[in-house]
């Protein structure tokens, strides 16, 4: 394995992330997930993260609940209080956060708390980063993910 000392989330993240507006329909979100080949999209206002919407959210909170995707807004079914990584976080910090919250994909914020990228377990795995297998083991342990819905609030910059 190659040494990753000093690598930061900002160096490994995918930049120019596509984000949804809270007013966008779930149907539009699904089309974007299809076109972009991703399973989760951040929901932002002025690049401030309000939540995260996943294909899982669409299935269990919209389709299972009998809501109409064309008239349901992303803000109504997204997961709020999203845990975010910061650009200057180390790879180890990002891995620890993914393991703790059991999420493979984290929004990345700059110092002004604006969305600047997305970091995934795949980004870290592609770098042969030590600790990835342990993180996946944590994420894969059967238990409900820590994505509890809470009253809307500023995104937490965990590990700040």
């Amino acid at each position, binding site marked *: 394995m190659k040494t990753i000392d000093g690598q930061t989330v900002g160096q490994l993240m995918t930049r120019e992330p596509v984000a949804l507006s809270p007013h966008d329909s779930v149907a539009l979100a*699904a089309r974007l997930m*299809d076109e972009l080949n991703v399973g989760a999209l951040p929901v932002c206002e002025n690049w401030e993260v309000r939540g995260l919407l996943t294909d899982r959210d669409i*299935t269990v909170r919209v*389709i299972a609940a*009998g809501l109409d995707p064309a008239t349901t807004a992303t803000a109504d079914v997204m997961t709020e209080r999203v845990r975010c990584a910061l650009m200057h976080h180390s790879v180890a910090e990002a891995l620890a956060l993914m393991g703790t919250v059991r999420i*493979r994909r984290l929004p990345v914020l700059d110092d002004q708390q604006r969305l600047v990228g997305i970091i995934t377990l795949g980004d870290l795995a592609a770098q042969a980063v030590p600790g990835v297998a342990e993180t*996946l083991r944590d994420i894969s342990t059967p238990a409900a993910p820590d994505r509890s819905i809470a009253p809307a609030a500023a995104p937490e910059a965990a590990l700040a």
Partner: protein
Amino acid sequence: MTTVSEIMSRDVQTVAPEDTLQKAAQCLRDCDVGSLPVSSGTRLLGMVTDRDITVRAVAEGLDPSQACVSDVMSQQVQSCSADADIESVMRQMGDAQLRRMPVVNSNQELVGIVALADLALKSGRHIDETVREISQPN
């Protein structure tokens, strides 16, 4: 050698091809899983996932209370035998980027399901390579 039968789950929740997408979504929610085998009796017909429902139904504007599982399921699914060695199954799951795979007998009847979580928790072997393959962007 550890075989799949030693670590697989035998109590498999399935959906039928004629079930509505709303019902399938409820099963995915209630079982707390991201994919379910589609079967007719014990015969494995395919798999349906959160992602199938999102991109093949919602993105295409299908009505989830009318469209059925057979409209969006994947038919050519990877499966393995209960007496397969878990190392080969881990490679197979890595190559196919799967986290859950159905287990069938010699008559292609569904007898169980094996999850990456089962491998991670019970095999005690290195799963780094599988993880890396599954986590790669397509």
